[in-house]
């Protein structure tokens, strides 16, 4: 009769208790949309987590096989709806790759500005919502206050606040309006002092550290095995950023830019020094707490925070380059542009990781096959591995630190 539980992560209790199956979601406050997690718990301890997907499936890829590439741009907006600009960019680049279409210089810098601003906006949501997952409400609103300002800028550029369809194959739908660059500089100037506030409220907060440090530790091997990308991968100490490591067609967009991949240096145990002179000395960055282990929730969060700083750096450089660049913003391709026969695949570094689009054409103006490879899908798959043996309260902390967007997972 006696049995032995082999997995040492499943804890034997002194007091015998019964296990419970609990549905977390799809209508749950902290599952970031319509994610459904089935938890097998023993009291407060979670022994197994199984994510269930598909509540937001909209057949986006299938629709893409019935529309021309330009027509499908709005559907990419609705994938990672928190970073629509970056989704647009990924699709635009892959279509351009198939068409072998090259952009003018100015359009390249415009894309850097827009996509990095999109990264800031997306990380702000990730950061604020993570606070919400841990039970503090205020950082969420601070983050959204700043995000709203970015959305205002986007609205001025393209007229939309959520589903932009701004970056299209061939360039952008229009140039930045006059005065936009200065407004953007003003925004960055007032946004920079906000970053230490976020650090004080969250990163440095002792309760926050207690809730995140050492929780959901993912080794580099696990991260690679599960195909995690983006801040989740870099939080585990793997120096992989498609803006450096990606295809040339993508990395050439960042040619001439100075920025760092945010990853912990395995020797010094430090992150790239964010004390840059252009930020002044008033930025007070937190030390890595003693409790934190590389690859835990705290590191994933911190990587996002530092990436915001790098994105600001990039935007500032891009604004200068944009002003002095030659050429125009790039004309969008025709709505019914014939695609050459063949296939193309390109990955870009979206805020949540590697966003790849795959396009097969039979020579028609409508693609024969469209496929999106989303980062969150792989990032989420690691949940059940990370959550095993944690406490119930750690599940939102871990899922939140993966920063998933269901629109991108289900497509």
């Amino acid at each position: 009769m006696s049995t032995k539980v082999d997995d040492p992560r499943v804890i034997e209790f002194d007091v015998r208790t019964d296990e419970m199956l609990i549905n977390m979601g799809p209508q749950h406050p902290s599952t970031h949309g319509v994610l459904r997690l089935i938890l097998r718990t023993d009291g407060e301890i979670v022994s197994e987590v199984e994510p269930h997907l598909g509540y937001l499936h909209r057949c986006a890829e299938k629709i893409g096989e019935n529309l021309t590439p330009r027509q499908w741009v709005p559907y990419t907006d609705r994938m990672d709806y928190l970073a629509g600009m970056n989704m647009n960019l990924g699709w635009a680049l892959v279509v351009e790759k198939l068409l072998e279409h090259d952009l003018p210089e100015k359009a390249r810098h415009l894309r850097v500005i827009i996509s990095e601003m999109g990264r800031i906006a997306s990380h702000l949501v990730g950061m604020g919502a993570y606070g919400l997952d841990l039970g503090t409400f205020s950082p969420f609103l601070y983050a959204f206050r700043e995000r709203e300002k970015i959305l205002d800028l986007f609205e001025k550029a393209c007229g939309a606040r959520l589903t932009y369809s701004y970056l299209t194959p061939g360039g952008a739908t229009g140039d930045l309006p006059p005065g936009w660059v200065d407004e953007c500089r003003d925004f960055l100037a007032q946004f920079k002092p906000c970053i230490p506030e976020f650090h004080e409220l969250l990163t440095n907060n002792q309760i926050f550290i207690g809730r995140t440090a050492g929780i959901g530790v993912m080794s580099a091997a696990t991260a690679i095995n599960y195909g995690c990308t983006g801040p989740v991968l870099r939080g585990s100490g793997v120096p992989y950023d498609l803006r450096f490591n990606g295809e040339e067609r993508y990395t050439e967009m960042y040619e001439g830019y100075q920025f760092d991949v945010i990853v912990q240096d395995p020797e010094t145990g430090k992150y790239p020094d964010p004390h840059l002179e252009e930020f002044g000395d008033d930025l007070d960055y937190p030390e890595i707490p003693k409790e934190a282990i590389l690859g835990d929730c705290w590191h994933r969060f911190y990587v996002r925070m530092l990436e915001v700083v790098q994105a600001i750096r990039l935007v500032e450089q891009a604004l200068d380059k944009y002003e002095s660049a030659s050429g125009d913003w790039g004309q969008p391709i025709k709505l019914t542009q014939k695609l050459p026969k063949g296939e193309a695949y390109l990955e870009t570094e979206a805020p949540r990781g590697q966003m790849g689009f795959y396009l097969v054409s039979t020579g028609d103006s409508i693609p024969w096959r469209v496929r999106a490879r989303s980062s969150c899908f792989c990032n989420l798959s690691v949940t059940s591995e990370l959550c095993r043996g944690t406490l119930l309260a750690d599940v939102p902390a871990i899922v939140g630190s993966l920063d998933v967007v269901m629109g991108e997972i289900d497509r």
Partner: protein
Amino acid sequence: MGILAAVNRVYWHEFFFMLFAGISVVFAVCVLLTQNIVRMAFYLVLSLGSTAGLFFLAGAEFVGAMQLMIYVGGTLVLLIFGVMLTAQQRYVKMNTHPTDWVLATIVGGSLLVLLIGAAAGVDSWKDASASKKALAELDVDDARTATPLGLALTGVRVDKLDSDDPALANGQSGYLLPFIIVSVHLLVVLIGAAYMARTKRSATAPVGRAERARLNIMQMEHETDDVVYSASKQSSSSLLDSDQSQAEESTDEAQE
């Protein structure tokens, strides 16, 4: 003003006595009759709570508050245990055999008759004049017993200072020794209870834990039809270092 003057304030005592006694007895009967543990514990709380009311009524304020805090608070733990031990099969019922009921009622009834006879049998206990006199000489100070109680527990009986008995008048004959004995007793009992509540930390649980888990899961699967679990999907081979450290940490937490 006749009516107002007529109903003397003394009758409040009767009123509240009947109220508290009634609640106490009625809910005690409910404890007896119900089969649901959680409801039983809840009724017990009400019964004990109104008994605390009786204590207040009899002038034992400190004991009444103590009753609320320890007895009723202790029942809280009972309640939790009730929930915990019955959570797997809710509203668990363990019916008593009718013979037991009959037997218990007969014995209990006889005991009740005997006790009530004894309680009502002594004249001096039924002497209403004494209580009326005591109430008439009502002094709020009489209820202020917390300090004398505390001093009695440390060995000094301040309430016996004006006693006729010279041995008592010294303020001796407190309850220091019983107090210490009870304290040590409590300590021993708590350690013992904590020790006993621990089973041997074993991977060989007597009644297969995994079997029970499997049964539970099958039942759950039936409830949530799209949940598919294989109960024996545990792979220890793919463990990574970090996960082990996490498991150790969780073990520490569990031990806390």
